[in-house]
């Protein structure tokens, strides 16, 4: 194939270039409209009363004093929220039981974590609302608290939900428990495999609850109109997921719910579940159908949105002297929070995924504790799992005297190998990604100096396709207005518009994308699971093909030839020796407007792999870890907009570094969160990170996708803590088996070493 304008090896004109993002000017000039910017006539302000106890029975709630306060327009408790039955609901990147979702929205009989919503108020201004919340009198019966997953599994542990029984893929236990689910993957003969091994390494690891750390807090405005129609404006990863939850939680017909997504200031999985929106809607109705605005404070975000699970993980791995792994075993205990639904299923799928194994056993446990209900966080469950497995793999390679990349190459999965849970892998680019690091100047250059070490680690993530709907209209000047419903979190307006432009053979700048609400476009799944550039890209390609068919008919009419004679390639329509560009053809005019729509649901999203290499220096007097250099290679399929792919990788690494070195929820013994501020919950900032070198490995385009796109948003959060732990080991000689690897913990480990 001849090279085209941008020199992309597949001949693309638009794909692989780096146009300016369509929403860039509004974002950098402050004109983009976020939830906090929205003001409607008659707007009221809402505030939530939250439980001061981590586990308590609610004996009574007296709202009379709050209702009597001048300026208060409505007060609600769980009594105002419809009772909903058990029903499992898929929200795209997370799945939940509606009854638990309702009880997480407003506690009914018990508060299950510090910050659990108890009641809410709407008032003329936020100050009155805050004063009113403090006038609500709640009588609690404090109950014993359990914060640790393994303690919650013990006989005699406080039971959070009396009716809960352990579910083993449909096999239900018979006793009350905090273990909501047990997952098991098992293949071959694990003990025979270990008997065959020359070296066996076994270690236990602990990770803490961490938060996504999006900058924009949860917010929403709701208007429950006099005619029964509910309108929600909010910051969300998926307007349709919000519509569905509002409909189910408030028992409102879905046709009576409209959700308009506003700009989003980060999410990373944390803005799929609703928290404030149903409260604002109920308050709106009770306040005489006035719109109600609610915004979480940072403390509320940390206390009572959806962080990801803390965990305890044990990994055992054995190998022959030649480096071949003979058996691997893992046990994962993930803390779900007050309601079932940790990402242990994904963790169990990730933990041994990079390795070709004949003998394996993985047991995962979803365990209730008195912490906020976990929600999705960028490759949910994967980072904890890989931290454990990659540290053990590193130790095994070291014990065998092997280079850690060579050890992984010997055992690397490839197309046709089985995942731990059984299904075979499609075409993947893992080996090419390992080789990208092995051949990278960073890895080839020895690291010198005292207290310095280099670590590598790898990560796997499933990826997801999902449902997408799009539509487009062609303007008289040959530009195209594109309407989509996928929340743009990381530059997807650009990556989607570019795929339509490529299909039509026009410039990226000639496609004008717009993200709209639930009344203005067909159904779209959430932006999550690394799906949007892949899945919605699929949809815009189908859309472009339809538009090209319309344009062929226009050309046939123009030239008075059969449409079959008209060919189209790269935006040029031709028949015989005549040819015309897309724009020129549009300029000829059309009797009818040129519009089209498309809806797709691809199911063959290819999984992604990442291989990271990090150099650190550890201060022997303080234990502080300084990152000297970081290189992250990732199997990206085809990079549509390389800058945004690099940005996804760099952002994921930054979050993984925070998870690895600093971030943790700190509770007292009674379950009170002690560090609910960004001063005390220490996320990395620019001075903490070097330039992160992102290496895009484009050797394995995803089969089936028109442009070979592979989801890129998540997998690079998986390797950083493990890579850092392995680097710290080489710098200090100690194996860090608990996150975060903060200065005090590293110092303590070095002293004990």
């Amino acid at each position, binding site marked *: 194939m001849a090279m085209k304008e941008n020199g992309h090896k597949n001949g693309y004109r638009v794909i692989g270039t780096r146009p300016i993002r369509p929403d860039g000017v509004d974002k950098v000039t402050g004109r983009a409209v976020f939830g906090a910017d929205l003001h409607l006539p008659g707007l009221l302000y809402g505030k939530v009363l939250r439980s001061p106890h981590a586990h308590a029975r609610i004996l009574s709630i007296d709202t009379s004093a709050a209702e009597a306060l001048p300026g208060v327009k409505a007060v609600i408790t769980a009594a105002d929220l419809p009772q909903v039955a*058990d029903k*499992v*609901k*898929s*929200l*795209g*990147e*997370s*799945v*939940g*039981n*509606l009854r*638990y*979702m309702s009880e997480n929205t407003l506690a009914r009989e018990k508060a299950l974590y510090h910050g659990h919503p108890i009641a809410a108020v709407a008032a003329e201004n936020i100050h009155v609302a805050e004063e009113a919340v403090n006038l609500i009198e709640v009588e609690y019966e404090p109950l014993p608290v359990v914060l640790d997953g393994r303690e919650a599994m013990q006989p005699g542990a406080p039971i959070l*939900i009396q*009716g*809960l*029984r352990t*579910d*083993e*893929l*449909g*096999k*239900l236990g018979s006793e009350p428990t905090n273990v*909501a*689910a*047990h*997952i*098991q*993957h*098992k*293949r071959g003969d694990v003990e025979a495999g270990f008997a065959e091994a020359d070296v066996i390494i076994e270690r236990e690891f602990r990770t803490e609850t961490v938060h996504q750390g999006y900058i924009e807090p949860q917010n929403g405005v709701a208007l429950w109109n006099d005619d029964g129609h509910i309108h929600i404006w909010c910051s969300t990863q998926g307007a349709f997921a919000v519509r569905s939850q509002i409909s189910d939680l408030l028992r409102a017909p879905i046709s009576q719910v409209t959700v308009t997504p506003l700009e989003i200031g980060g999410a990373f*999985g944390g803005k799929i579940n609703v928290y404030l929106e149903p409260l604002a809607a109920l308050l709106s109705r009770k306040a005489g159908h006035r719109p109600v605005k609610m915004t979480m404070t940072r403390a509320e975000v940390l206390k009572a949105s959806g962080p990801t699970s803390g965990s305890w993980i044990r990994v055992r791995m054995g190998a022959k002297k030649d480096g071949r792994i003979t058996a691997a075993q893992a046990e994962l205990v993930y803390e779900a929070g007050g309601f*079932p*639904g*940790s*990402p242990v*299923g*994904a963790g169990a*799928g990730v933990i041994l995924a990079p390795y070709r194994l004949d003998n394996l*056993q993985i047991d995962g446990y*979803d365990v209730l504790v008195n912490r906020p209900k976990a*929600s*999705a966080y960028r490759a*949910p469950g994967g980072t904890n799992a890989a931290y454990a497995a990659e540290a053990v793999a590193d130790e095994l390679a070291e014990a065998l005297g092997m280079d850690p990349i060579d050890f992984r190459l010997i055992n690397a999965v490839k197309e046709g190998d089985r995942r731990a*849970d*059984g*299904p*075979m*892998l*499609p075409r993947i680019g893992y080996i090419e990604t390992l080789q990208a690091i092995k051949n990278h100047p960073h890895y080839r250059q020895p690291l010198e100096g005292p207290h310095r070490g280099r670590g590598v680690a790898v990560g796997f993530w*499933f*990826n*997801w396709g999902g449902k997408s709907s799009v539509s487009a209209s062609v303007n008289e000047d040959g530009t195209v207005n594109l309407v989509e419903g996928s929340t743009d979190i990381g530059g997807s307006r650009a990556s989607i518009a570019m795929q339509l432009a490529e299909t039509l053979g026009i410039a990226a700048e000639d496609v004008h994308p717009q993200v709209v609400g639930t009344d203005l476009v067909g159904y779209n799944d959430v932006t*999550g*699971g*690394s799906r949007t550039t892949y899945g919605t890209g699929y949809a815009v390609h189908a859309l472009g093909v339809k538009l090209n068919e319309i344009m062929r008919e226009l050309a046939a009419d123009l030239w008075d030839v059969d449409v079959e004679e008209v060919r189209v390639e790269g935006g040029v329509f031709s028949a015989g020796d005549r040819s015309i560009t897309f724009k020129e053809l549009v300029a000829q005019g059309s009797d009818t407007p040129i519009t089209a729509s498309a809806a797709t*649901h691809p*199911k*063959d999203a290819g999984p992604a792999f990442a291989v990271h290499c990090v150099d650190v220096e550890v201060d022997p007097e303080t234990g502080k870890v300084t990152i000297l250099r970081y290189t992250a290679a990732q199997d990206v399929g085809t990079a549509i907009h390389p800058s945004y792919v690099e940005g996804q990788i760099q952002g994921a690494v930054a979050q993984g570094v925070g998870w690895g070195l600093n971030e943790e929820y700190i509770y007292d013994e009674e379950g009170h969160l002690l560090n609910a501020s960004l001063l005390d919950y220490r996320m990395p900032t620019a001075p903490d990170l070097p330039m992160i070198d992102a290496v895009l490995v484009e050797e394995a385009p995803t089969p089936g996708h028109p442009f070979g796109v592979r989801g890129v948003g998540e997998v690079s959060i998986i390797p950083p803590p493990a890579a850092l732990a392995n680097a710290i080991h080489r710098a200090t000689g100690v194996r860090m088996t608990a996150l975060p690897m903060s200065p005090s913990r590293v110092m303590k480990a070095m002293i004990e070493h």
Partner: protein
Amino acid sequence: MHHEVWIPAVHRDLTGGVETVQVAGDTVGQLIDELDRRFPGMKARLCQGERVRPHIAVVVNGVISTRGARQRLTEPSEIHFVPAMSGGAVDGRMTR
């Protein structure tokens, strides 16, 4: 038409430890009925009524089916029953 069904590890107590079985059927639902005939109790674990439980995903030849028991099998296939993940959380469990 015969298909290779991989029995989930937690349900191999019903199959005497057997990991994979060959089962005939034109739909996933028919396979589950046949599994239940050979290994009584299997259907109750995999299904609520005639539908696959919502927290169980059916994987046919490496692709997650959205049709569950209604999934037609037009070629000899490899079938797995795995925890539904939707890219993230394991799911919300039912209470009794």
